[in-house]
């Protein structure tokens, strides 16, 4: 089971791969849309890759609750 730090690191790699945002900019308090300029479509591809990487299920209706990087990290931590 991955800890918060490992999840953040893995998530940052996915965000970088999918959108080109620097991994260093992917921090817990950052909002995907406001701070990282990630649109809902890129968010979907991030979610799909995160499910694969962390072996978790992130339901469609949950995606809109993941406003910040921290929300996503917490969700993945609790789901895994």
């Amino acid at each position, binding site marked *: 089971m991955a800890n918060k730090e490992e999840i953040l690191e893995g998530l940052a790699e996915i965000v970088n791969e999918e959108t080109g945002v620097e991994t260093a900019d992917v921090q817990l308090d950052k909002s995907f849309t406001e701070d990282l300029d990630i*649109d*809902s*479509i890129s968010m*979907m*591809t991030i*979610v*799909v890759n995160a499910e694969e990487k962390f072996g978790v299920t992130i339901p*469609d209706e949950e*995606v809109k609750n993941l406003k910040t990087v921290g929300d996503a990290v917490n969700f993945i931590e609790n789901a895994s």
Partner: protein
Amino acid sequence: MTTLKQSAPQQYSRILGYGASRPDLSVTNDDIAGPINSSDEWIRQRTGIVTRQRASENISVADMAIEAAQDALKASHVTGEDIDTVIISTISHPYATPSLATIVADSIGSRCAAYDISAACAGFCYGIAQADALVRSGVARNVLVVGVEKLSDFIDNTERTISFLLGDGAGAAVVGASAEPGIAPTVWGSDGSRWDTVGMTHSMLEIRNRDFVENPVQEGEKIWPTLRQEGPSVFRWAVWEMSKVAQKALEEAGITADELGALIPHQANERIIDQMVKTLKLPDTVKVGRDIVDAGNTSAASVPLAAHRLLQENPDLSGRFALQIGFGAGLAFAAQVVVLP
């Protein structure tokens, strides 16, 4: 006892030629953004669509299907007499019966077997799978497959989940016997557990009975089934599951992605296409159908329209392998590698 005769099989089949019919109107994002509170920028960024092609009121699905059919016959160097089956994929022929296919068969001067299929955006690739099977089993010699839609008849301009994506048009192909393998095994299937993620707002019966539990209709209000979808959920299925289906189709064909001349995906959203290119790790040398930019999503017509255009713009693709993949309402999907004519 006399033994029964069965039709004599052919070893191989191929696509002999593609045809197209592109309707008369070019509808911009600004033209449609108002009623859905959207913008040119939003639509371009999320879908890649700049304009979508639509047909004027006086142009019917039959008109477009016939034009594409004739174009495909010409490209395939065959006449109506050579065609012994017509398969049409459409969701926008406004009659449940009779089929559109018999009108098209008649228009090419044929009394051959003719029927419509319902597999929405996967329909053209479903049709190619059937045509391949009919030709190789010896049931048919030459099969005309048409994907045609006039989706603009089935949209609600104030609906924001799908209407802005949709366009009209027709694409066609003729499948016949071949000396060499020309159509690899089709990977196809469905997921009916997601039946309600893309489709019509109402059934015919609900409309007859004016029985709308969820969307009550005002007295005198015009009612008509229109398309809608759960966009994010369909998007996710498309990028995730369809890349796997595409990969499987390559394996079934016994080729690798770098051997492709072209990828011709259903034109649902350019961002889905981008993702598929990435997941399949397609090299830059592979040409990718991106007809969506000025045609929009034309459902069953999108794959043959994109194929037709790629071949016109890149004649050297002739003889190369192309991966065609259609996916959408049902949810239904089909993919196959073909040799481009």
